[in-house]
């Protein structure tokens, strides 16, 4: 029996791998202490025996020896760097990588390659919530409280999240509170709600403003808390005069009395939480939307109180840790800013290089992908733990950019759609074949233990990085535990301080919450109880204004498209679309549309539907359901199609693309 965690989402359910790769839930990890797992978790063992596994490096599609592939890539990287400078080479990471990998990837890029051009797919995931949390609280730790606290609340508002499908065992923590769910669809999660608000896609920000307006007008603001623990309320209050509820109703389609019910329930609750998910965050105004929800939480006096608060529901397995240790364009380990001289000095010291040798901030994920192969853009890309041909917005355009590179290298364990385009593919270990730490949605650092030996011919991402670094004249560790020790030193004194955490402590304590600055420090489950992370200890109200979606509907593209997940699949589906029971549960992409819209478009259930936007088109089978608004269609993004349509308009702060709303035309495919 090996104790480890699920390979998929940010809940990181505890599980054991027994003989014959039998999976069973652990009951000592709070996320799923009830012994829960969803179908993805139960069937995770099949990832390890999947027949489509890559076991040999591929050079232009042909199997080659490891040394040949590594030599080839190192030579090409050197040549491209010589011709185009260090920024001619780019690195793209993922929010599923362990902390050790994310850390090593950032170090490899800055030290071995000297490139500023590194970012990761977490930009498509958590960046808006992270940016808003840093503005408000001075620190971003997705949920700044243990998940088990939720069960004690009276009311939980979830804005744009469908946990019943994305992380089902999460729902067990919500069986006590009254749930208020904001979603344009009546999702599995919305069906569990006491109150479901169903706004027009792209209007969550207006809705949050309208709710705060009502809280103020109905005198529900916790004035004592606002006075004692926050700054900036007056300016926000004035900015809300323009967002009276009747105006918001017209924009969002949410009736005023429903908004009022929601606000009153939150205000009347002894304990309440406001949570945001990708539905609210994946917009060109995602950061401001989260700020508006945080403003509401602050006005009601929730954050930093035991039993109440604001949190964001992180998505990817290591979405939290992945954004803390330096694979992000603007960051160094420990959630440090790369343009902060003290941070550069500290990290350069740990790395044994001069601080001025470290590059500055680079392009954000979509801007990086968009620049590939263009004049002034990178000519080579090393890709780890991501499948942007499926998961990036305007995916056809991204595929063209990837095809225009002089060198595309991927590390994968199956032939993903992006790996299929690569010049070189390294077959790498996965999940149960390696050890490493993951930081889950609570900010709890967890340990995944190696349970089985990898197939012959397969090496770790860490071996690939060290092998390339060696050829470029640098040394990198490959042992996860040694890397973690280095990460501890690099993070010491940073926001996300891991220096007191060890593998032994994680195993003994079932996870440790950061910040944990000393070996004797107990970790910090609830970091804001006494003060927030700004120098004055106060949370900041941030005035924000609603604005329309980057692309609104018009005569040519009259319908909104929103995208999201289904229970049986994870992210781009590269893993889950290869597991038979999951394919059986959700075999194909679909377009969900309202019966009235279907009638108008003469579409019947099961028809093949063509959905087109200004950026491309996708086909999928029609699913007709009154769970969705009449003016909106929904497509899951686990298959090729949905992201050919989505809009790469970026949030000005977080650089998050607008995945959750764009304008489309829908037709029966004849």
């Amino acid at each position, binding site marked *: 029996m090996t104790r480890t965690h699920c390979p998929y989402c940010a809940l990181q359910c505890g599980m054991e791998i027994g003989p014959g790769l039998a999976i069973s*839930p652990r009951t000592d990890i709070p996320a799923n202490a*009830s*012994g*829960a*797992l*969803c*179908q993805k978790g*139960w069937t995770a063992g099949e990832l390890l025996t999947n027949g489509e596994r890559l076991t040999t490096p591929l050079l232009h599609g042909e199997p080659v020896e490891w040394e040949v592939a590594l030599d080839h890539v190192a030579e090409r990287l050197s040549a491209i760097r010589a011709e185009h400078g260090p920024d001619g080479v780019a690195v793209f990471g993922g929010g599923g990588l362990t902390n050790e990998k994310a850390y090593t990837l950032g170090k490899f890029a800055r030290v071995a390659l000297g490139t500023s051009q590194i970012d990761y797919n977490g930009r498509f995931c958590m960046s808006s919530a992270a940016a808003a949390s840093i503005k408000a609280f001075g620190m971003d730790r997705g949920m700044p409280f243990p998940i088990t606290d939720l069960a004690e609340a009276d009311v939980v508002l979830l804005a744009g999240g469908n946990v*019943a*499908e994305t992380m*089902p*065992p*999460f*729902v*067990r923590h919500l*069986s006590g509170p009254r749930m208020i769910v904001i979603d344009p669809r009546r999702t*599995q999660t919305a069906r*569990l709600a006491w109150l479901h608000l169903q706004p*027009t896609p792209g209007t969550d920000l207006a809705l949050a403003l309208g709710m705060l307006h009502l809280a*103020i*007008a*109905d*005198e529900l603001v916790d004035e004592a808390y606002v006075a004692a623990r926050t700054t900036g309320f*007056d*300016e926000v*209050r*004035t900015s809300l*005069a*323009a967002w*009276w509820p*009747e*105006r918001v*109703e*017209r924009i*969002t*389609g*949410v*009736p*005023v*009395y*429903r908004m009022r019910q929601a606000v009153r329930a939150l205000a009347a609750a002894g304990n309440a939480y406001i949570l945001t998910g990708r539905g609210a965050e994946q917009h060109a105004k995602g950061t401001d939307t989260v700020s508006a929800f945080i403003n509401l939480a602050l006005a009601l006096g929730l954050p930093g109180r035991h039993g109440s608060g604001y949190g964001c529901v992180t998505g990817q397995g290591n979405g939290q840790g992945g954004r803390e240790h330096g694979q992000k364009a603007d960051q160094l380990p420990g959630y440090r800013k790369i343009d902060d001289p003290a941070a550069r000095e500290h990290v350069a010291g740990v790395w044994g290089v001069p601080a001025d040798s470290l590059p500055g901030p680079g392009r954000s994920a979509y801007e990086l992908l968009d620049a590939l192969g263009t004049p002034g853009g990178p000519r080579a890309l090393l890709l780890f733990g991501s499948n942007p041909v499926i998961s990036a917005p305007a995916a056809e355009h991204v595929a063209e950019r990837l095809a225009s590179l002089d060198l595309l290298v991927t590390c994968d364990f199956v032939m993903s759609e992006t790996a299929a385009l690569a010049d070189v593919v390294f077959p790498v270990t996965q999940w149960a074949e390696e050890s490493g730490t993951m930081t889950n949605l609570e900010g709890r650092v967890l340990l995944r233990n190696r349970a089985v030996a990898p197939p012959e011919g397969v090496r770790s991402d860490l071996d690939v990085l060290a092998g390339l670094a060696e050829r470029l004249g640098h040394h990198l560790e490959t042992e996860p535990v040694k890397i973690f020790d280095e990460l501890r030193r690099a993070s010491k004194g940073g926001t996300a301080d891991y220096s007191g955490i060890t593998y032994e402590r994680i195993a003994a304590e079932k996870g440790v919450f950061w910040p944990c600055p000393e070996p004797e420090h107990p970790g910090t489950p609830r970091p804001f109880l006494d003060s927030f992370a700004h120098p004055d200890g106060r949370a900041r109200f941030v005035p924000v204004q609603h604005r329309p979606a980057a692309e609104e*509907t018009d005569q040519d593209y*009259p319908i909104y498209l929103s995208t999201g997940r289904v*229970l*049986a699949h994870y992210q781009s589906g590269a893993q889950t679309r290869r597991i038979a*029971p999951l394919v*059986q*549960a959700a075999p194909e992409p679909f377009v969900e549309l309202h*019966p*009235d*819209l279907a*009638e*108008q478009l003469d579409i019947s259930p099961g028809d093949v539907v063509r959905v087109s936007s200004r950026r491309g088109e996708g086909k999928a089978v029609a699913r007709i359901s*009154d769970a969705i608004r*009449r*003016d909106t269609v929904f497509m899951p993004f686990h298959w090729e199609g949905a992201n050919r349509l989505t809009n790469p308009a970026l949030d000005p702060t977080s650089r998050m693309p607008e995945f959750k709303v764009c304008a489309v035309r829908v037709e029966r495919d004849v």
Partner: protein
Amino acid sequence: MRLVVVGNGMAGSRLVSEVRTRDPHIRITIFGAESRQPYNRVLLSNVLAGSSRPEQVRLLESSWYDAHHVEAAFGDAVAHIDRETRHVVTEGGRREPYDLLVLAMGSEAIVPPIPGVERAIPFRTLDDCERIMEAADQARRAVVVGGGLLGIEAARGLAGRGLPVTLLHLAGHLMERQLDVEAGEVLGETLAGLGVEIRTGVSAESVREDGVLLAGGELIEGDLVVLACGVRPVTGPAAAAGLEVRRGIVVDDELRTDDPSIFAIGECAEHEGTVYGLVAPAWEQAAVAADVITGGKALYRGSRLVTRLKARSVELAAMGETQLTEEHAEVVRFSHRARGTYRKLVIRDGRLVGAILLGESDAVGTLTQLFDRGAPVPGDRAGLLFPGLSSAPVADSPTLMPDAAKVCQCNNVTKGQIRACWEAGARDVAGVAAATRATTGCGTCRDAVEGIVGWLCEQEGISV
């Protein structure tokens, strides 16, 4: 370039911030007749009702102007426009040159010319509001003259303060411009239930110290009289300057008057024969005018009107052509007066052209958006009026559920699989869970699985 804006209400203040967002450099001076920071007039009824404090309806902080390099001169109304030399002149004698001028002078309350009317307080500005509140503290009974939107909001607000209120209205039913007869009556009944006595079809003859005397001699008692008899556009200076004025200052699709260097927006402007009295059109106009002023090509094509009453415990939305009858349109109507519910759809050429919704309704958002977008109306009209009506019933009884129905979403387990599992010997939830993993995800299907197992056992006469 020097931009001068006359009027610091909803339209003028909006225009200034819209222009500043688009162009950080243009020189802007704004004149306001009221000495206050701009505030949201829409929220005055909340102030009157006591649910908002006056400082809570401010639209901009006083520091905004300095921070955004806008010169603001409040409390000095513009009296004269000198088009020859391109100057405005204030009552205080200040002359200010302009290259472009925006008139956003709003409207003024109509005060009916009846004896004693000076005893009454019009309900139009924040100052009025404060006067009314002050008087309400001393008053024993109030009379509100005028049963339009504002009068109803005022009456409801005063009643909410615990004051007995009589609402007088000249027309045969309330809000006769927005509502049909029945809706007006249902609204009256709702208000009556909230302590507002409604008198329609009555005309005020004079205002006395002890109340309002009606034509016909009846005295409606009240020591506080509030006037909400409508508004008229402020067009005096524009007319005197020779601009084309009909009911309002006439503007084209760029919001320009017949002098190309002068724009007019908001309640003082008349576009395509319409003077709008609501804030949404004023803000749409402000956005268009700001775009044109800063070199853009936006055009204003008129606004769709949605009237939303803001009065506690009264939910009313009215939009478009609500009074069309079956002769000219398709009309769908539901009335339940005992509950204060009235819903009406007016559909023409497959589009929603008007609607009334009285009483709490989840339909209001959808209908407003259908109306705003001019989108086709679905065939199922009842489903529109009663959201949720068309939802398929959920067959959650084990008997009715088909075998293919998914019981456990998290682990993709159907009723048929549970039955098969039962037939193979599982007799309780734990047994089913062990075999199928049903209930092991989110856990919300536990009751359903229990139900199915219990029903199967019952069928076979097995006690559990």
